[in-house]
C-alpha cells in the first residue's frame, strides 16, 4: 500500500513536470496604438499580435515548410477549375460564449466581411475574386470564386479571416471590437482603447492546429500595452513594465542583447523589402543607365550597418529572403555591388557631366537633381539621408521632403517623385502584384510591362507552387534587370524578450506570436 502511494506520488510529480502548470501573467508591448482592432474591419498588423490567439482560422500555414495544415477545417478540396473551395469542418468546436462553430458560422463570417456596410479595410480584399459562400451541411461549407485565386488559403490562414461568434457580432454591432469572441486558445477579456487589452487562457481549448506545441495555453493572463514612442520601449522592458516588446530600435537591441535578463529575438518578416521605387517615366530616371548608376552608387551594406546596426539582412530584390517564391538567383545575377566608378561611367554614358564645375552633374544646362518623397516611419528618412550623401559623391543632388502616408500616396500616384520608399509585409508572393502590375495602386516605379503583368496575373491564378515559383522568379529578375527599385533591407522585427518568457514562437507572417506555446521560467 505504501509502495503504491509512493508510486502514485512519483507519477503525479512526473506528469506535473511534463505539462507546465497553468498560471502567471505577462505584459506584451505593442508598438502602435492600433487603428481599430476588429480583424474583419481593420488592417493594422498590431491587432493580429493579440487576436491571432483569440481567433482560429480555417487553415494554418506551417512557417517551417510553407504548407497549409488543418485548423477549423479538418480537410478541404479545390475544384479542378480552381473556383470552388470545399471545407470540411471540425466538430465539437465552440466559441468562448458557448455558440457552436459550424458551417453556418463560416457563412455568417464571410458575409459579414464582404458586406458594404462593414466597410472592411483589409479582410474583404484578401478574398480576391470572392463570389459567395454556400452551406452544404452542418460541417461542410463552400467558398465560390469568380476566377481562380491562388492566395486564398494564405488569406484564410490569417487572423483577418478568423472566425468570430455570430451571436456576439449580432449583439454588439459596431461596438463588437470591444467585446470580441472567437474559438482560440485565449479569450478576449477587455480592451480599453489606448491603454490595454487583456486576454485570459481558454481552459477548454482542444482544437489547435498541429503546428502548435501545446494543447491549451499555459500563461493565465496576457496584457497588451501600447508603446508608440520607440525611445520608451527598452526602458519599459528594463523597468519590468513589459516582458515582451516588438520593434526595439537597433541601438537598444544591440545593448539589450548583451544583457543577462533579456534577449533579442529578431524575426524576419516575409513580404516586400524596404526599397526605393524609381519613377521610370520621369527624366532622367526614364534612362535605364541612370537607374543602374544609382544602384551601383549605393553602398547598401554601409546603410544597413549604420541605420539598422546589422540587425537585418541587405536586400537584393523586391521580395525578402523568407518569402515563399523568393529566388536567390536574383542576388547572384543582379548583385549591383557598390561600384562608384561604374556608376560614374554609366552616368557619363548617359550624357551627364559636370560642365560648369559646381560639383553637380548636368546635361543641356540642367543639373542632375532628384526629388525624393519620404515618410517619417520605418527609418526611411535616415536611409534617404545616407543615399543622398552617397550620391552626392557622384555629383547627384537630392531634394527630399518628409510627408504623411496619405500625402505620399497622393504624390506618388501623381508621379511627383523621382524616388519613394516603401515596405509591406505579406506571406504570399502575390504581394508583388500590388507593386509591379501596371494597374496596381503601389506601382510607384510607374512601370508598364505587359509581359510582367501577364506573369503576375498568372501567378495569382495557378495553384501549382512550382509553376508559381517560376513566374515570380521571372518577375523578380525583370524588376532588377530593369532597375525599377533600389532594395535596401529585408524587414526584421527585433523583439526584446525578458528571459522569464520562454518558447515564444511566431507564425508564418513573422508578426504574430503563438501565445499558446509560451511558458514562464521558474
Amino acid at each position, binding site marked *: 500500500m505504501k509502495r503504491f502511494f509512493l508510486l502514485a506520488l512519483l507519477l503525479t510529480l512526473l506528469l506535473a513536470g511534463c505539462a507546465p502548470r497553468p498560471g502567471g501573467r505577462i505584459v506584451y508591448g505593442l508598438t502602435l*496604438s492600433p*487603428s*481599430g482592432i*476588429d480583424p474583419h*474591419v*481593420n*488592417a493594422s498588423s498590431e491587432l493580429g499580435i493579440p487576436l491571432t490567439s483569440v481567433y482560429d482560422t480555417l487553415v494554418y500555414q506551417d512557417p517551417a515548410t510553407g504548407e497549409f495544415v488543418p485548423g477549423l477545417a479538418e480537410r478541404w478540396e479545390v475544384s479542378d477549375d480552381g473556383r470552388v473551395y470545399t471545407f470540411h469542418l471540425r466538430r465539437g468546436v465552440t466559441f468562448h460564449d458557448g455558440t457552436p462553430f459550424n458551417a453556418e458560422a463560416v457563412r455568417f463570417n464571410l458575409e459579414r466581411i464582404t458586406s*458594404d456596410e*462593414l*466597410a472592411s*479595410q*483589409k479582410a*474583404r*480584399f*484578401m478574398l480576391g475574386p470572392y463570389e459567395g459562400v454556400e452551406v452544404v451541411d452542418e460541417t461542410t461549407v463552400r467558398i465560390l470564386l469568380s476566377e481562380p485565386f491562388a492566395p486564398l488559403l494564405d488569406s484564410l490562414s490569417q487572423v483577418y479571416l478568423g472566425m468570430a461568434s455570430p451571436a456576439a457580432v449580432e449583439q454588439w454591432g*459596431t*461596438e463588437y*471590437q470591444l467585446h470580441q469572441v472567437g474559438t482560440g486558445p485565449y479569450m478576449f477579456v477587455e480592451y*480599453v*482603447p*489606448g*491603454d*490595454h487589452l487583456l486576454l485570459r487562457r481558454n481552459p477548454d481549448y482542444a482544437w489547435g492546429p498541429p503546428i502548435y506545441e501545446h494543447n491549451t495555453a499555459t500563461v493565465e493572463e496576457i496584457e497588451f*500595452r*501600447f*508603446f*508608440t*514612442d520607440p*525611445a*520608451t520601449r527598452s*526602458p*519599459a522592458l*528594463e*523597468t519590468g*513594465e513589459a516582458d515582451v516588446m516588438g520593434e526595439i530600435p537597433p541601438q537598444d537591441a544591440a545593448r539589450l542583447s548583451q544583457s543577462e535578463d533579456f534577449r533579442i529575438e529578431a524575426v524576419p518578416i516575409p513580404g516586400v523589402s524596404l526599397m526605393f521605387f524609381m519613377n521610370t517615366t520621369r527624366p532622367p530616371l526614364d534612362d535605364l543607365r541612370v537607374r543602374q548608376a544609382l544602384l551601383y552608387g549605393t553602398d547598401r551594406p554601409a546603410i544597413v550597418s549604420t541605420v539598422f546596426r546589422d540587425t537585418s539582412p541587405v536586400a537584393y530584390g523586391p521580395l525578402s529572403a523568407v518569402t515563399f517564391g523568393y529566388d536567390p538567383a536574383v542576388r547572384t545575377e543582379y548583385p549591383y555591388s557598390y561600384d562608384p566608378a561604374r556608376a560614374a561611367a554609366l552616368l557619363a554614358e548617359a550624357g551627364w557631366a559636370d560642365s560648369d564645375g559646381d560639383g553637380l552633374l548636368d546635361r543641356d544646362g540642367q543639373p542632375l537633381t532628384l526629388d525624393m518623397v519620404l515618410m517619417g516611419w520605418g527609418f526611411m528618412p535616415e536611409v534617404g539621408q545616407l543615399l543622398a550623401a552617397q550620391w552626392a559623391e557622384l555629383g547627384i543632388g537630392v531634394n527630399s521632403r518628409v510627408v*504623411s*502616408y*496619405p*500625402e505620399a*500616396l*497622393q*504624390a506618388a*500616384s501623381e508621379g511627383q517623385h523621382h524616388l519613394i520608399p516603401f515596405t*509591406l509585409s505579406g506571406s504570399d508572393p502575390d504581394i508583388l*502584384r*500590388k507593386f509591379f502590375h501596371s*494597374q496596381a*495602386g*503601389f506601382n510607384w516605379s510607374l512601370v508598364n510591362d505587359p509581359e510582367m503583368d501577364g506573369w503576375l496575373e498568372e501567378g495569382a491564378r495557378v495553384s501549382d507552387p512550382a509553376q508559381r515559383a517560376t513566374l515570380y522568379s521571372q518577375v523578380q529578375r525583370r524588376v532588377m534587370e530593369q532597375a525599377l527599385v533600389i532594395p535596401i533591407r529585408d524587414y526584421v522585427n527585433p523583439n526584446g524578450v525578458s528571459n522569464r518568457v520562454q518558447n515564444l514562437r511566431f507564425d508564418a507572417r513573422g508578426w504574430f506570436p503563438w501565445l499558446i506555446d509560451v511558458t514562464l521560467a521558474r
Partner: protein
Amino acid sequence: MVRNAARRLLEAAFVLWLAATLAFLALQLTPGDPAQALLAASGATPEQVAARRAQLGLDDPLPLQYLRYLMELLRGDLGQSWLHGRSVGRMIAEQLPPTVELALAATAVGVTLGVALGTLAAARRDTWLDAAATALAVVGLSTPVYGSGLLAILLFSLHLRWLPASGTGGLAHLLLPALVLGFALAGSIARVVRSRVVEVLGAPFVLAARARGVSGRRLLLGHVLRAALGPALMVTALQFGFLLGGAVVTESVFARQGLGRLALQAILWRDLPVVRGVVLVGALAYVLSNLLADLAQTALDPRLREEAT
C-alpha cells in the same frame, strides 16, 4: 449680469462654430485621399477605392458636405470614425477623462511651482535666488516635453525606480507625466508672476500696508500674492492650447491613454470625423477654461467685480 452671461454664451457658440468650420476647411486643404489611405495597402482595385470614397461622401460637392456636417453637429452626432469603424462620440468619451486628468494635474503642478518660483524670485530680487529661480523657469519654458519626459523616465523610473514609466492608472502613473508637463507650464507662469509681484511690491497700497506695520511675510502672502494670482490664472487659461498640445507628446512618451494620441493618429490617417470631433472638444475646453479664468479673476479682484455688474 444676465446680459453679460448671454453675451458670453453667444461668443462661445461663435468660437465653437468657427472651430468646427476651420477644422472642416483645413482638412479639405490637406493633400491626401482618405479612401486611398485606408485601402491602398489592402490590394483594393481603383474601382473599389472609388466606391469607398463615394460611400464616405467625399465625392459630394463641398457645400453639401459642409451642410451635412453642420446638421449632424446640431443633432449632437459626431459621426463614425472611418479608420476605427466606431462612433466618434464614444471614442472621445473614452479618451477624454485621462487627458483631463493629466491637464488638471499638470495645471496644479504648473501653478504651484510657477507661483512659488515667481514669488520667490520677485521677493529676493537681484539675488542668486532670483537668478536660480528664473533660470529654472527658463529651462522649463524652453525644454521640449519630449526631452524632459525621456529624462524623467531615465531618472525616476529606470535609475531610481520610484515611479512607473508608462501607462494610465492611479496616482503613481499620473505623477511623472503631470510633473513633466506642469514643469513646462510653470516656466511661463513664473515669469508673469515675478514681474507682477515686482510691480505690486512697489504699489502704493503695499507701501501703505508696510507703513501700517504689516509684516513682510503676511504682506507677501496676503496682499501681493493675491494680486499676482489673477495673471497666473490668465496665463494658465491662455496656455490651455499649449497644454493640450503638450499632452499629445506627453501621452506618447508615457504610453498614456488620451485624446492627444487619438488626434495624432486621426490626422495621420485623414480620419476626418475624429479630427473634427477632437478639434471641437478642444475648442470647447478652451472656451470653458477662459470662462473659468474670467470668473476666478473677478472673484479675486474687486475692481473687476464692479465693472462687470
